[in-house]
């Protein structure tokens, strides 16, 4: 029997927000367990708290799957129960689960505060899920803040590391600044359209009752706010420093999770609410995409630190993904969701290798330090090569299929120049991704004992295997993930028509 939610009673919100509620409760349990006397004296506290968080993530995933059987009536509620949100939730839960797995050994070795670390990780995942579910700009804002504040704290989590503190402060200041833009954008949009509800904004724009000038400013400021969060050039300045300074598991988590959350909210707002003024905003996003693709790929070429190179790679990927926002059609939306899913696994996988090569510390991050990894640690070398090939977009990996689907959407929208730039910059990016692989396989290790005693913890190994499996599966059989993404995009497009027919 399918359940219908019409949000006439507030109890319906409890059902609609079940995954978020599960995860919030789990976060509080983890936080409290972290300060309990028994846990504090236990030598395995990090492992225990990690698996407890993973349990919460699994239960939230079950709740998310269960929500597929629930249908909502109308679209006036503040949260959506549609395929788009549920697909995005899979990505967030994957990112959280993978991050927990790869972080356990690091948190233990760096003596980070495990209860707080995992509690914040789960809470920030809840924020991401709110951003994906929002049908209202205010809910997006709340989700953005829940997510960001938790991630700021996680960035500065390693108190013994000056770089971590610096990264945390930088991220906090610039994040707060961008939040100001975002909030002002919401205020102006509200002033122009008379509502913060996304569907109602679309209706107001459709019937011409929205104030055009005010709306233009609102759209521009919202675009800036989102561009900060997805780290698109020229709003990317914080990204390399923060990604480099943050503890590596946190970098892995935010490079996947925060970016996904920002992109899905970006897409929902611009695709549904601002569709009527597409002619006014497409050029802004077009330029953001070009600058991000060209700029980030050029700067990545000269990086010596692998962690920093991956940060610029993240900016370049923001450029590729912005194509989907400019395309403004269902094909591109499905491509975006598919790509973000693959990106989560390949990026967290690559950072997991960075962590392992650094022996669960912030060491050995230069490209030269990877010399000889292939012959000394063949499994790690193979895994890293697969992650890098997927990030570069090599055929046979999920990253390749993702780019193909993005290009399909862009070609449907006749974005010939942008598609050409994507292909050319991808070719450019092969250089810096494959340079790491070249160092791993073609260079001899400088000393006899380099890379010999690297410990690969069980949980991290599990995450690597899952990551590689997902990348290869989506690369060779993209069908099932793409079908789900198409259905998710369909739910968004039908929502758009619903609000348009309400004119």
């Amino acid at each position: 029997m399918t359940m219908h939610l019409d949000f006439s009673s507030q109890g319906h919100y409890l059902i609609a927000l079940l995954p978020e509620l599960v995860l919030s409760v789990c976060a509080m349990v983890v936080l409290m367990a972290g300060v309990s006397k028994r846990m504090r004296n236990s030598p395995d506290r990090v492992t225990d708290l990690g698996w407890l968080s993973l349990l919460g993530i699994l239960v939230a995933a079950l709740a998310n799957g269960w929500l597929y059987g629930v249908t909502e009536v109308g679209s006036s509620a503040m949260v959506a129960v549609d395929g788009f949100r549920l697909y995005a939730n899979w990505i967030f839960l994957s990112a959280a689960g993978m991050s927990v797995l790869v972080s356990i050994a690091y948190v233990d070795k760096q003596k980070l505060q495990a209860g707080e670390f995992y509690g914040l990780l789960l809470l920030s995942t809840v924020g991401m899920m709110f951003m994906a579910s929002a049908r209202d700009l205010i809910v997006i804002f709340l989700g953005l803040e829940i997510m960001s504040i938790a991630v700021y704290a996680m960035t500065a989590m390693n108190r013994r590391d000056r770089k971590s503190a610096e990264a945390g402060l930088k991220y906090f200041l610039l994040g707060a600044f961008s939040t100001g833009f975002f909030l002002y954008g919401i205020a102006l949009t509200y002033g122009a359209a008379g509502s913060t509800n996304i569907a109602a904004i679309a209706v107001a724009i459709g019937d011409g009752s929205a104030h055009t000038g005010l709306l233009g400013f609102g759209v521009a400021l919202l675009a800036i706010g989102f561009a900060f969060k997805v780290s698109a050039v020229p709003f990317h300045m914080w990204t390399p420093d923060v990604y480099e300074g943050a503890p590596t598991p946190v970098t892995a988590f935010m490079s996947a999770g925060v970016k996904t959350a920002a992109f899905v909210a970006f897409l929902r707002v611009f695709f549904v609410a601002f569709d009527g003024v597409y002619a006014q905003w497409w050029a802004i996003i077009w330029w953001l995409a070009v600058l991000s693709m060209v700029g980030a790929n050029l700067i990545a070429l000269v990086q010596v630190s692998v962690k920093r190179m991956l940060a610029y790679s993240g900016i370049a990927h923001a450029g590729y993904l912005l194509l989907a926002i400019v395309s403004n059609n269902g094909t591109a939306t499905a491509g975006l969701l598919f790509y973000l899913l693959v990106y989560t696994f390949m990026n967290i996988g690559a950072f997991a290798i960075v962590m392992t090569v650094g022996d669960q510390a912030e060491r050995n991050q230069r490209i030269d330090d990877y010399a000889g990894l292939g012959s000394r640690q063949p499994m790690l070398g193979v895994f890293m090569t697969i992650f890098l090939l997927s990030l570069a977009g090599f055929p046979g990996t999920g990253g390749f299929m993702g780019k193909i689907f993005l290009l399909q959407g862009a070609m449907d929208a006749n974005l010939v120049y942008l598609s050409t730039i994507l292909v050319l910059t991808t070719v450019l990016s092969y250089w810096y991704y494959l340079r790491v692989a070249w160092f791993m396989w073609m260079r001899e290790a400088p000393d006899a004992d380099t890379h010999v005693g690297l410990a690969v913890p069980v949980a991290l190994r599990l995450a690597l295997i899952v990551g590689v499996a997902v990348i290869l599966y989506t690369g060779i059989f993209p069908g099932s993930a793409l079908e789900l993404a198409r259905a998710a995009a369909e739910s968004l497009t039908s929502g758009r028509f619903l609000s348009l027919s309400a004119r």
Partner: protein
Amino acid sequence: MSGSYAPLLILLGVSVANAIGMVVVSHILNPRRPTPQKDMPYESGMIPLGDTRARFSVKFYMVAISFIVFDLEAVFLIPWAVEMRELGWSAFAAVSMFVVVLAVGLLYEWKKGGLEWD
């Protein structure tokens, strides 16, 4: 519609004029007889010691943060308490959830030692 904002604008104008007026008028009317005492930042207050970038113990920030949290709790609870009967049980459930979350936070702070001064 714009008429309903007119009192706000008038209030804004009056307060700006008042603030500027006080500074300008006292500047014009006041007799100037500077002495070393009068040139100090706080004429009849403390003698300034060193610069303002002194280091405070982190404990003060802990107290300040806890204060803000529970201050805001009161801000949310009082309007609810005033309208409690009209809002009914669903509002009660919402407020209870809010208080439980804060209680968990307080319990965490207590266990972590955030409430101890030494």
